[in-house]
């Protein structure tokens, strides 16, 4: 269906004027040519413009021409000035049966579209609900303030808890902070280069191509890369938190570059020109004016990028390892992170409550801990998401003022 519409795209159409003219001329043909014209206008859904389709064409452009609409739309990157589809209105010559068929088809498609949304809600609700129900059981202050040292099987600890995730939370924060420290400066500066310095040169095109490609690096490959790099540069078998940071930063950089690039591109040019006119150097213009204006957008984009990598498991399994105790040092020794903790608890299976076990020994304690840690992980990611949205919301409100 899309293919057919595509064929009618005029290749040489540049300014967007032609399709409108074309549309108008064809439009004037069809409703007049048959008595069904009025019928077709009654079938128009209520949110359409005016009953008279013909005069609506030339009047509406007023404030914005179709060219700017398409240009502003952009269709992702590089789609600027793309050809607009020409509507083949000849098809709409209505007959009674075709009208009914069209309405039926419209109804079916509407139903399908609404249905697709409901279908997508099922897994989301299910995942959140299951994590909540299973996770809440073990989620308490003791769980959040202790690590797993001295926890033996399903036996309770001295404080009455069953071990906790403090070490994993610290590990996750440190590893992610490390990834931020690496990827944010590189990502933002790269975006600055792409938007402010490169004049669409070959290097810039290569960089933006490779950033796109980089955004598709599988996380486990990033983990293997960090593992291989540290094995080669530091020494074989080097496993530490920072190695995980390197792996995560590889996954984070493309997102940071892309959001920063978008945010820098929407900074109004007047600001730059005003600064240049006042004799401000380009460096100061960028750091003091452009970056500052785009900052909230960049921050919110970065937070979303963090939310994405904070839940990564596979690379950290390889690069950062697992221990039961708190390791505050990012650069030495293994470091447990929350996702790895969840996976490890899951894969350990049942605890043994033998004859010598304390009363209150739980055999399924590991699954409970896994769900509780998963719930904490989801909450952290959701909080970060909300924070990112909040910042971008504050940003838009200020723009509106």
């Amino acid at each position, binding site marked *: 269906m899309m293919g057919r*519409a595509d064929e009618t795209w005029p290749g040489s159409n540049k300014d967007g004027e032609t399709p409108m003219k074309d549309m108008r001329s064809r439009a004037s043909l069809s409703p007049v040519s048959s008595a069904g014209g009025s019928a077709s206008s009654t079938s128009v859904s209520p949110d359409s413009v005016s009953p008279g389709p013909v005069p609506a064409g030339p009047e509406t452009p007023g404030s914005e021409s179709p060219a700017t609409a398409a240009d502003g739309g952009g269709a992702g990157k590089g789609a600027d000035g793309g050809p607009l589809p020409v509507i083949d209105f000849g098809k709409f010559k209505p007959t009674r049966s075709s009208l009914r068929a069209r309405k039926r088809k419209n109804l079916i498609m509407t139903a399908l579209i609404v249905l697709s949304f409901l279908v997508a809600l099922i897994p989301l609700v299910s995942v959140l609900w299951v994590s909540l129900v299973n996770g809440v059981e073990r989620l308490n202050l003791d769980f959040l303030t202790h690590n797993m040292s001295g926890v033996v099987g399903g036996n309770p600890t001295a404080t009455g808890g069953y071990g906790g995730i403090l070490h994993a939370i610290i590990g996750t924060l440190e590893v992610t902070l490390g990834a931020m420290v690496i990827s944010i400066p590189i990502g933002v500066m790269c975006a600055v280069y792409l938007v402010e*310095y490169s004049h669409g040169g070959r290097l810039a095109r290569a960089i933006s191509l490779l950033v796109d490609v980089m955004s598709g690096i599988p996380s*486990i490959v990033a983990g*293997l*890369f960090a593992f291989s790099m540290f094995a080669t540069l530091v020494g074989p078998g080097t496993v530490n938190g920072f190695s995980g940071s390197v792996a995560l930063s590889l996954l984070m950089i493309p997102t940071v570059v892309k959001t920063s690039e978008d945010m820098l591109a929407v900074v109004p040019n007047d600001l730059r020109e005003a600064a240049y006119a006042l*004799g401000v*150097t*380009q*460096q*100061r213009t960028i750091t003091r004016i452009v970056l500052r204006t785009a900052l909230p957008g960049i921050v919110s984009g970065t937070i979303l990028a963090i939310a994405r990598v904070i839940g990564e498991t596979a690379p950290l399994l390889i690069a950062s390892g697992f221990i039961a105790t708190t390791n505050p040092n990012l650069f030495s020794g293994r470091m447990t992170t929350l996702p790895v903790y969840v996976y490890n608890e899951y894969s350990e299976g049942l605890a043994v409550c033998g004859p010598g076990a304390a009363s209150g020994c739980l055999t399924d304690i590991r699954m409970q801990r896994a769900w509780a840690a998963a719930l904490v992980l989801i909450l952290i990611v959701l909080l970060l998401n909300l924070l990112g949205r909040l910042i971008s919301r504050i940003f838009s409100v200020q723009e509106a003022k």
Partner: protein
Amino acid sequence: MADVDQAMKEAAMAKEAGAGRRTPDRDPAGQAQGGTHSGARADRIFRFCARGAGILILLALAAVTLFLILKAFPAFIGDGGQRSKAIESLSGGRASGFWQYVGPLVFGTVLIAGLALLMAFPVAVGIALFISHYAPARLSTALSYVVDLLAAIPSVVYGLWGALVLVPHITGFWGWVARHLGWIPLFAGPAAAPARSVATVALVLAVMILPIITSVTRDIFLQAPRLQQEAALALGATKWEMIRLAVLPFGRSGIISASMLGLGRALGETMAVLMILSPGFSYALRLLRPSTSQTIAANIASQFPEADSTGVALLVATGLVLFIITFLVNYMARRITTKAGA
């Protein structure tokens, strides 16, 4: 949302208005500041840093390739006997050469990711249309958040959910499919019980890539030229016809590149596959049977812990193959968008 659109329009207009805006900037500006050397130097340093960051990204990708090749080297060069012994040990005696080993893995990876895309694609486009054209404005922002929530759930949680909740619940359904559609070779039974089959994994991956495809296509649908949509409606097109004529063709290249992004994501997904799939080692196209396929990523995570040094080299080599596949997919996605945009 509206503000961003506004700003984007402004930027686009400015681009049109002053195509040469960047030319009159640097040098006159530097001089006008009274020839302060420090300003000019800071300018140069900053420029150098920005350029350096860009180049660093190229270097990072080169480093990924380099270190993977370096670590995978022993898998290709070295004692042939030891190599084939390592492969036999990793594959349980099913393969003795590298390509013989990696072949079924590539097949499994592409099969599962492709299936996931096939399932996610129509739903994602549907949701995107629902948000952009059907839902009331206020609801649609809320729905966008909901879709982004799906993207925010970590894969290990999807793995837990898939293995402990979805698998027991979907076993009966796949059994029903195998009984009634079993005459199609693809769905030939007996269906796996529990349903830790390719079909279930692809379903979970579809849920995982759904938000990625949705958010990109949604943005593109929102940018489809309003005027043409209104013109279509004004001419009596039904809503669906309007979408088919004025929205879908506009978003075509975007939809394709979005699905390529989703495909890239599905190709590299590890934890969910590792925790749900009952892996096998064959070229069989039997979606409901267990033990037919395995993906490269899950295979690495599964075999890495017990691999000796030659084994690690082999697994890194399979990681390199995965890297090349995702590289190609993303490169193709990029080519499609730029071609359509040019």
